[in-house]
């Protein structure tokens, strides 16, 4: 992770994608995921899955907010990955994101690792 990464302008997300040691893809999400930015996340994940990514790890260590529209995008990506024989894992959620995943029930649907 880049501790000195440029700040994310409000209303925008940034992404960084790399190959994982297990051969899957790891995408780092930076910024706030809400109704205005969820389409950016959907587009990014759709593009990765369209390019053939099967096992996707979404690194949320620098995602500072997520609401139900963002949860919907994650579930959409999970369904699409599983239809293609792959999976989605959420990684390093912040405390507040983890709480949203727990109370919404998302953590029962998508694997989460610290």
């Amino acid at each position, binding site marked *: 992770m880049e501790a000195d990464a440029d700040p994310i302008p*409000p*209303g925008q997300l940034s992404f960084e994608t790399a190959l994982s040691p297990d051969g899957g893809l790891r995408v780092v999400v930076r910024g706030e995921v809400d*109704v205005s930015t969820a389409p950016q996340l959907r587009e990014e994940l759709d593009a990765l899955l369209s390019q053939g990514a099967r096992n996707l790890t979404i690194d949320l260590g620098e995602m500072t907010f997520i*609401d*139900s529209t963002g949860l919907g995008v994650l579930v959409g990506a999970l369904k699409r990955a599983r239809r293609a024989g792959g999976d989605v894992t959420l990684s390093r959620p912040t405390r507040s994101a983890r*709480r*949203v995943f727990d109370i919404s*029930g998302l953590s029962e649907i998508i694997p989460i690792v610290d």
Partner: protein
Amino acid sequence: VAQTGRLTGGDEDSARVALTLPTAPEFVRLARLTAAGLASQIGFTYDEIEDLRIAVDELCYLIVGPDGHRGTMVLWFSNEGRTITVEARGPAPRPPRELSAFSRRILNAVADHHAVISTNDEVRFELRRAHRDE
């Protein structure tokens, strides 16, 4: 447009903030920011601030919808002691929006009280959250 920092009636334990925003998705973060600012000022914990932020966000969605629309919404943030109330009203999006299952679960967990009144033309909501002493 914001009217902020107004202590009312000489009562230093209460404040009321009014915020008028375009009904566009990119402005919802300003509603979250205002809620967080007030909550922080009256001693909410980090987790309580996060709870309030997401509650405001989820309810604003009912007015803004996924794509926004023409119009403005008005939010009033007030506190009595360490209880914050957020009231809002704005034009209803077309088609009208309902809380998703995720939204409902989140709101039931993070808000002490929330209520929504929707008509064809307007959406109003009220939200309340109190600081809980350790």
